[in-house]
């Protein structure tokens, strides 16, 4: 089974960057690819970001959902190529007329999509979600919101594992997921959700006791043990991002 789209611990340059700097890059890049409507620029961005994965030692085939997203990008591109009528004709196959505008638009939209996907993957794979939450709290996010994120991150894999157990328990008692009709599947799903709900209530009760027992919510603010220091590399990365955004704005003017 492929690993989920989760943080992969490491010591690369990207791993060491401040989580909020990486977050700023993700937001900045996403904004830029929508601002700069140039196929060449977007394609370059997508290719450069794709090159980051081998540098991180992560193969594309090991990422869950990656193939589906790349296929979606190809489909987006193909639809533009097939259904854009404007521009000089490059090729005609039966009723389909391929134009230069269609190809450029296809490349632009597909690479824009891929840039956002690659940037998001890079961010998620190299950013410890706990560190991100703590960094956000130390930057002003109310700590109750921050810990909503942290506890969700803790509980999601636990619920995922429980769901698998309940599913297996049902299979073992003759629920034929492996050959049921749609109607039977809906019936079985009901049986899947009830144990999950009961379990979730129990876990939330235990967690509430654990948090209250350690004075969570006692004061309107709290201190933090973790220190997120901003290093030279972080400042350089931020300057680079600002430069890139300015260049993007200049390009579009």
């Amino acid at each position, binding site marked *: 089974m492929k690993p989920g789209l989760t943080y992969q611990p490491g010591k690369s340059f990207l791993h060491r960057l401040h989580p909020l700097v990486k977050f700023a890059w993700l937001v900045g890049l996403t904004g830029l690819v929508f601002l700069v409507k140039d196929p060449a620029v977007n394609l370059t961005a997508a290719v450069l970001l794709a090159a980051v994965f081998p540098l991180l030692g992560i193969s594309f085939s090991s990422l869950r959902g990656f193939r589906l997203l790349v296929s979606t990008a190809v489909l987006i591109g193909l639809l533009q190529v097939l259904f854009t009528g404007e521009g000089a004709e490059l090729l005609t196959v039966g009723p389909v007329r391929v134009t230069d505008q269609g190809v450029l638009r296809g490349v632009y939209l597909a690479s824009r999509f891929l840039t956002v996907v690659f940037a998001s993957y890079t961010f998620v794979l190299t950013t410890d979600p706990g560190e991100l939450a703590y960094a956000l709290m130390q930057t002003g996010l109310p700590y109750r919101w921050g810990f909503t994120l942290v506890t969700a991150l803790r509980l999601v894999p636990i619920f995922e594992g429980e769901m698998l157990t309940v599913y297996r328990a049902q299979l073992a*008692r003759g629920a034929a997921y492996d050959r049921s009709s749609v109607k039977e599947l809906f019936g079985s799903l009901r049986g899947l959700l009830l144990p999950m709900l009961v379990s979730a209530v129990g876990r939330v009760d*235990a967690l509430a006791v654990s948090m*209250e027992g*350690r004075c969570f919510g006692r004061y309107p603010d709290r201190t933090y043990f973790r220190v997120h220091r901003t290093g030279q590399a972080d400042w350089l990365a931020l300057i680079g991002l600002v430069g890139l955004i300015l260049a993007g704005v200049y390009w579009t003017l």
Partner: protein
Amino acid sequence: MIRVRDFTYRYRGAGQAALRGVDLEIARGEFVLLTGPSGCGKSTLALALAGFLFSQYDGEPSGVIQFDGQDVQDIPIYEHADRVGLIQQNPENQFVTLAVEDEIVFGLENRRWPREKMEARLAWSLQAVGCEHLRHRKINTLSGGEKQKIALAAVLAFEPELIIFDEPTSSLDPTATREIFELILELQQTSGLTLLVIEHKLDFLRRVNPRQAVMKAGEILTQDRQAIPDESLDLHPPEGPGDRSPALISLEEVSVELGKEQVLRGISLEIRPGELISLLGPNGSGKTTLLLTVMGLLEPVSGKVSFSGLEAGSSRTSDLARQIGLVFQSPDHQLFASSVWEEAVFAPRRFGMSETEFTDRTLKLLEKAGLEGRLEDHPYRLSYGQKRRLNLISVLSYQPAVLLLDEIFIGQDRDNASFLLQLLVDFVNRGGSVIMVNHNPDYYPLVSTRLLYLDGGALLVDALLEKGMDEISRLGRSEYLPGGRL
């Protein structure tokens, strides 16, 4: 320190009171053991002493609980939390953060401690539980025993005066259980802390012979210093398989991988009718994976699993399920129907059996389990022990040839465990086979015909009971054997 006087508590909507006229006193520095059957109110009493019963739950309390002369109901929960720490059953449920450091300082950060002070306390807490080496680890990479030690360190960090342990070892293997008990005993001897320990595994505490408060049906029956009774269950193992009976299940050089990790390594074994096999081994040794592989829920990367001579790979899980019953660890994960009766007959109906085929048998089993008056109730309204009985009956109702049981005795008191074990012995005496993952050395020697011991995915012991126990002893795993613990 603690004085409970005529304390009664009824949860909102509950028919009966969970606690009835409880009287209890605990002196500073004392070590008290709280025991009693599952569902008798031990955890409710723990929640009351820690104050959470009044801050987190709706209910009707009467009587008094005092901490150093102050009524606990009048003390703001955050103030009370400074003095009382509660360690719950499942460490997984009480972690808030994702990393060991964050978890231990969590309570200190909430109390707005400065960083330097936290640094010193973090180091002290980790040292107190002997886990300095875990400081930079993520919670999800810890073993069950390590998690429980970190949960304890997180409570020790704010130096409470009383620590309540609510069955802290129920989900741990014998090795981790021994480590946790050693830690508790060391704390008691060296720190002067007041400790209240709720436990079923009394054998581990025999050496210290603490004062025992014994509960039943919401009441405290006795609270004297008395020797922990050495009561054996009245059970007899099945006769075992005949020499010539053919194998029901056979595994040949089976290896299984989960992700990139090899969880089972070249397992070969045969299971015959009439065998009651106990499968032992540390947490993470591959026991559950082995059961899931036999059931066809996991596919081996190499080797062959066959059932009655047919290779498992050629059968669907839903077909194998008719012959092999599987019961998991948590009762709540396997209750799907809207009433006790519907739950008990869920599987035989799914398998297309006629009502006459299973109705009598199922009714008799439910009667034996004391559930005959609860047939229309929702399964979630049953007690923990009753749910577990229903889980087993829901599988016995269609009479599979083999039962695979994954730690079904966790959290069960002796009476309930004895009932379940007798059902298994009866099942095997009628020609069935059982493989049960069960660590409790009080139980498995009474009923098993054969032992398997897995470690690191490899089958290190596969022998008849007595010989198997000798081999486990030679492996230096005495904590898995009766009397071989603290």
